């Protein structure tokens, strides 16, 4: 259905024009966002194919600026344009003051940078074959069960507004979410992996190989007394460490004064080796696109460059309120049933100089954390990252000697990335819309359960 972009969406496109026209006649500036997609997931549970899905979705959202106020309404069916406009105008009657205007300049035409015909046409059989391959690899480990969801998706998005903007682009996404688990009395082990690309470069076999290695390495549990330790964070754990930074550079949080960083652009806030980039134009990056969900062209934004805070992530509203240029990070939910808010597109931490092997070898007695649990919750604006070590290994003289359980990791991410960042690996790992290296923190607090 997505192949018919140049003509197949006639009724939806006519609906969008009609909505714009009605809003214009009511004296409002307006923006209409439309996205339509089809997804084909195959799902394996406990080592067997369980479910094959095909899901179609469409969302239409109208935002009006009327008599200085903003109103929103959305729907999932291109019907009753009058009602959609009426609801948005009603919302604008009591709505917030408009601090921004819609951009008039279109982001250029789609050259297919986010589209791969091979993904769009990928046969169910191929996904099933990858799934079976993964399941077989895991089944070779005694007691292990595999779960997997592999999917391909194709979407088309169009944004038009009364300022003259007209943006249209297509995107494909190939994704894999893999889980391997071993359950035994008093000891549950879960190993996760996931990846996604707009192209075909999702290597399920390579992911499976690493997971099997993890399953084997984590079979033995070892003691780990409470204390301060050097900790190596694997890419999945790095994501949690970055939670407070991402909360504090969110344009809306800055605008509202919740983020403590409003006046700190240009300051050396982190270790000079630390660079954090949002890249909406990254090749293969599933978080990117021709433009964001407000029609602002995507771009590469250095959030932190060599430890210096360089930019916030901004949508139209927060950019206008702060007197800054929008960064192309306005993002809507899948059903478009709320306002656009700033969200990272593809997030990257720049690779370092050290090899992972060397980084690990330098740890006398410490911890390697593959992933945390629950580290996302809490007071992010204070920099606090506290999480249960869901999968972690004790390191002795650089070797993984066994799995560490039942303990909490705590650091303040702001101070840790400034004063305790002991190394960044050369190796990086893509996890869907992020790509991170391994980070060595010279000290973190570990609190363990007593025997």
């Amino acid at each position, binding site marked *: 259905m997505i192949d018919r972009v140049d003509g197949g969406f006639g009724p939806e496109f006519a609906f969008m024009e009609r909505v714009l026209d009605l809003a214009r006649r009511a004296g409002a500036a307006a923006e209409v966002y439309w996205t339509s997609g089809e997804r084909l997931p195959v799902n394996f549970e406990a080592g067997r194919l369980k479910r094959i899905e095909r899901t*179609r979705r469409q969302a239409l959202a109208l935002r009006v600026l009327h008599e200085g106020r903003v109103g929103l309404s959305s729907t999932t069916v291109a019907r009753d344009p009058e009602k959609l406009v009426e609801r948005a105008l009603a*919302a604008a009657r009591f709505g917030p003051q408009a601090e921004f205007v819609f951009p008039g300049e279109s982001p250029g035409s789609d050259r297919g940078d986010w589209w791969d015909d091979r993904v769009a046409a990928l046969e169910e059989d191929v996904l099933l074959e990858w799934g079976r391959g993964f399941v077989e690899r895991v089944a070779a480990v005694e007691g292990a069960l595999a779960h997997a969801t592999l999917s391909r998706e194709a979407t088309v998005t169009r944004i038009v507004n009364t300022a003259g903007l007209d943006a249209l682009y297509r995107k494909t996404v190939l994704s894999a979410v893999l889980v391997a688990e071993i359950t035994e009395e008093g000891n549950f082990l879960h190993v996760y992996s996931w990846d996604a690309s707009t192209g075909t470069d999702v290597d399920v076999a390579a992911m499976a190989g690493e997971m099997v290695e993890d399953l084997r390495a984590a079979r033995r549990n070892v003691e780990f007394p409470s204390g301060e330790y050097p900790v190596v964070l694997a890419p999945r754990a790095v994501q949690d460490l970055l939670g407070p930074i991402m909360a504090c550079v969110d344009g*809306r949080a800055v605008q509202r004064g919740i983020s403590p960083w409003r006046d700190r652009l240009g300051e050396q806030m982190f270790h000079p080796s630390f660079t954090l980039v949002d890249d909406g134009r990254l090749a293969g990056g599933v978080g990117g696109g021709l433009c964001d969900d407000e029609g602002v062209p995507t771009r590469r934004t250095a959030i932190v460059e060599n430890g210096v805070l360089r930019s916030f992530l901004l949508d139209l509203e927060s950019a206008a309120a702060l007197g800054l240029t929008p960064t192309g990070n306005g993002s809507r939910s899948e059903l478009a049933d709320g306002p656009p808010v700033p969200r990272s597109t593809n997030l990257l931490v720049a690779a370092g100089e050290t090899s992972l092997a060397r980084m690990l070898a330098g740890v006398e007695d410490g911890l390697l954390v593959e992933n945390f*649990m629950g580290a996302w*919750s809490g007071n992010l604006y204070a920099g*606090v990252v506290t999480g249960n070590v869901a999968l972690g290994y004790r390191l002795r003289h650089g070797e993984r000697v066994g799995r560490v359980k*039942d303990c909490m990791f705590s650091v303040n991410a702001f101070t840790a990335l400034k004063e305790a960042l002991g190394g960044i690996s050369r190796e990086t790992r893509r996890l869907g819309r992020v790509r991170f290296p391994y980070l060595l923190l010279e000290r973190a607090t570990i609190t363990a*359960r007593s025997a």
Partner: protein
Amino acid sequence: MVGGDRVKAFLQALVTGKPADYLEARYEESTIVRVVYRGPRLETVAESVLSGGAIRALVNGGWGFVSFNRPDDAEELVGAALAAAARAGRERGEKVVLAPVQPVQADVLLDPLEDPRRVSLQRKVELMGDYNRRIMAWGPPVTSSSVLYQEKFTRLWLCTSEGTCIYQERLDLSGQVAAVATRGGLTQIGRYGFGSSRDFGVARGLENKVDEVCRLAVELLDAPVVEAGEYPVVCDSRLAGVFVHEAFGHLSEADDLAENPALQQVMKLGRRFGADILNIYDSGLDQGARGYLPYDDEGTPAEKTYLIREGILVGRLHSRESAGRLGERPTGNARALDFRFPPICRMRNTGIDPGTASFEELLSGIKLGVYAVDSYGGETNGEMFTFTAGYGRMIRNGQLAELVREVKLTGNVFHTLENIEAIGRDVGTEESPGGCGKGAQAPLPVSHWSPPIRIRRAVIGGR
């Protein structure tokens, strides 16, 4: 789509006479109203109408699932669902017997106390605006706010090839008033959440709560981060509810269990998990709770399901498939977030039966401990879990002492439940905004009506 009977006829035609062991079709229309104030600004007033349907087919143990927005797509997609199920079924080649339920024809209309649909949008915006002004008028160090109101009214039709045909109206209302205090680069938040499945009244009269959250946010600026360690912990009723949700509720969701023989060994009915005083249940019967669910998304009627009675494992949360695989009864826990997803085993209102302890008795005898209050959520992998409190107070010699912040607990289901040594007598029925996540399906409205509890020792992370 309008006209209830027309939708039923449409769905019935989809599921009748097709080559499947089981076929179900759902269609829903939701209206969502959202009002958001942040800081001095009204940030969002939005009204959305979402509609869509889903079809699920079972053939020889394999499932096919399709979802769509346009009813016109349904005819084509029912074929796709059957083909997908047949394909998966060929690979599985097993006979799955869904646990039987009596086919139901029912119309479940909303039975509101104060119906939010009869309250104008203007009134909602004004009410939240009053709270927001009150927070912002508190003055420094209260510098910002977050006042949210959300209401989702859903009309839901479900028809199955077994003759079930149900129309349900569901309301999910939730929100919060939160004050944000900042000083010298430190941000602290005081929050009060509310929710209901039948009453706009829960959003009214929150002025005292607003004052409380302002005071709390300000006081937390001076509170130290809790010192990491292992402590006796008293959880208030809200946090105790989240604790039981994370610590035992998710492990009780039987879809994983049904396909994992090793987990079945660990979770044998009759196994002891806690002391005699511990009774844990999950119920779809509690009117007003966000987790109220007269019929689940497979048409199984609600019940109150005990998971633990007097410390012993006695039940679990089933879909028809998981119950069928384990030879147990379906419990009405098959839930789908919306039409985009198939139903899976989920919680409703999960709680602990009240005990006998007064609040003073819960504190008494604790030389050094932590009283952990309110919840910012948690996570579990089945065995280990975490949950985050809004804030805490140290307990010193049986008395509440100084305020502490950043209180996050972790535990292990095989140790922590048996460490519940006292249970309060007063059940808290306050609701929280947000919801539960499992896979991609979040946030699903759930409730946790619990009394406060005392845990002998729990690991708290921190400084």
